[in-house]
């Protein structure tokens, strides 16, 4: 995996919403404005971990003709253009499974993916995917949640690579305004048992939340729904660029407690 700058701003983008050209432009703008890594979403017809905003984004992308293989092409082109930050493929397991776990992992690696983020693949079911990632020297990012027991946190962290994706709330993706006490507690618990970076996601929509989480020990924040909300319908990258630069700036000024 390429090195993750800390604290990392990691925007999520649904590839192909509304088309591949816009996705590439958006990612270039975000990288120019402080994004340290990208979560590149490969749209799936039934995104059960996503709220309305990202469901709609996936639907627009699928309507626009985005496919798993085309999304991998978008990634390849971004690498060819010289985008060097870590990029993770985020998708649901059926997309990987249906395209062949080993084949799809290899394809993603060759295009320049650093790893995978698959929300419906808990550790108990991840054997095949983990082997494929190990064979291709890619990272399979594991999720941790506020309702994980310490015992389960340790189990998840033991075999995890890259970073831990800490889910800030019990629920699905979608912009929320407040800082979650559950999330702060989760960051603290995770930090005690692992040296891996802990990156927090779900429900982050503003500079104050991002800074607060970093202050509490998070090594990065993932922002998805908020960004989709900023460009959806207008397909203009300016607001997203402004938002990223503001979050990045405030986050990076934080002194850890």
């Amino acid at each position: 995996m390429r090195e993750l700058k800390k604290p990392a701003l990691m925007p999520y983008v649904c590839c192909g919403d509304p088309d591949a050209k816009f996705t590439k432009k958006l990612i270039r703008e975000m990288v120019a404005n402080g994004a340290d890594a990208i979560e590149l979403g490969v749209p799936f017809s039934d995104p059960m971990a996503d709220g309305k905003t990202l469901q709609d984004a996936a639907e627009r992308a699928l309507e626009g003709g985005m496919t798993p293989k085309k999304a991998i092409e978008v990634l390849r082109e971004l690498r060819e253009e010289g985008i060097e930050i870590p990029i993770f493929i985020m998708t649901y397991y059926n997309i990987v499974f249906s395209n062949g776990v080993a084949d799809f992992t290899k394809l993603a690696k060759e295009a320049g993916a650093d790893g995978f983020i698959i929300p419906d693949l808990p550790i108990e079911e991840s054997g095949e995917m983990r082997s494929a990632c190990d064979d291709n020297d890619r990272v399979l990012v594991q999720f941790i949640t506020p309702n994980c027991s310490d015992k389960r946190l340790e189990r998840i962290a033991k075999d995890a690579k890259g970073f831990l994706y800490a889910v800030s709330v019990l629920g699905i993706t979608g912009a929320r305004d407040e800082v979650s006490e559950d999330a702060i507690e989760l960051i603290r618990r995770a930090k005690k048992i692992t040296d891996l970076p802990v990156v927090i996601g779900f429900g982050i929509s503003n500079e104050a939340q991002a800074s607060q989480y970093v202050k509490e020990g998070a090594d990065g924040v993932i922002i998805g729904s908020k960004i989709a909300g900023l460009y959806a319908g207008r397909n203009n990258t300016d607001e997203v660029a402004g938002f990223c630069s503001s979050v990045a700036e405030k986050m990076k000024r934080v002194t850890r407690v």
Partner: protein
Amino acid sequence: MKRYFGRYGGQFVPETLVPALTHLEDEYCRIKDDRNFQENLGSLLADYCGRPTPLYLAKRLSKKLGVGKIYLKREDLLHTGAHKINNAIGQCLLAKKMGKKRIIAETGAGQHGVATATAAALLGLECEIYMGSIDAKRQELNVFKMNLLGTRVNIVESGSRTLKDAINEALRDYTANFRDTHYLIGSALGPHPYPTIVRDFQSVIGAEAKKQILEKEGELPDCLVACVGGGSNAIGLFSAFLDDAVGMIGVEAGGDGVRHAERLTGKAREGVLHGMKSYFLQDKDGQIQNTYSVSAGLDYAGVGPEHSNLKEMERAEYVSVNDQEALAAFKALSQYEGISPALESAHAVGYVMKMEKSEDKTIIVNLSGRGDKDAPQVKELLR
């Protein structure tokens, strides 16, 4: 408990749900052999739902078709009109044991929604049902019934606006609210332990049918026929006969010839959705495809994992019956026996109408539900 049926099943859910499902599994294991719980369930099934349901020899239909002796397992006579109540009562009792205050469920045809709303009303639980807008339109009466029972029906406008999307919404709700909410899955599908829990609560169908056929015929039947959407009525009937030399036939929806819901008989491939590995209708990229059937209850892109395994082991056979054949069966059963089946169950009858002629065969058809809910739709279709 086993997480898999052969290669199928598993628990493909977001991490947030893993502890919730582990808790559900633990609690279910606890009540499974608890005599108080089982007695309580048994008396509600008997006194409230009307169990045991009759095993009825359909003489006129048998004579007319000439395929053997056709017995109907009359789940259509249950309170709320379908087998769904068996599982709804069982899971609501379980939810109460777990201290949950709120029940959520998905529904396709509306039968599971009505059954859940009924069980929730009976046991004093708050209830919300997710239903695709297309299904809500074609099963308007059931939407009204649910409202009447004090349940809120959330109409789902995403995706194909049918059962699949209702399950997505219910899973999202469950992920956010599992602490006080039980997700009452209506078919033998979803993440472990649901396929097992639902099968167990529906196994009363097979257990009764086995006892009844032995009383009436002195021997086991030659085959069992049941429709398969998610597959709960079929697995409930099959479960008692798995170790016997009895044929098992699951009938899928053949739709209108172009659009269908043929998972085990068609071009479906292995996939992962709604928490389970099973067969799903999907395109070459892995996007789940829209299905179609005249019957909302069979209109689902996937199938319960135990059926995928029975198919793989060649223990059960899966066939399909199209809309027209199901409608013909709806009419035939009404005219020869005075029984109007649900359009779902009409698919099972429709297959029997296509079976080879035979004098000495004994067949049990699971008449999983009654057709009242479908009467307005059938009226339109037969016009």
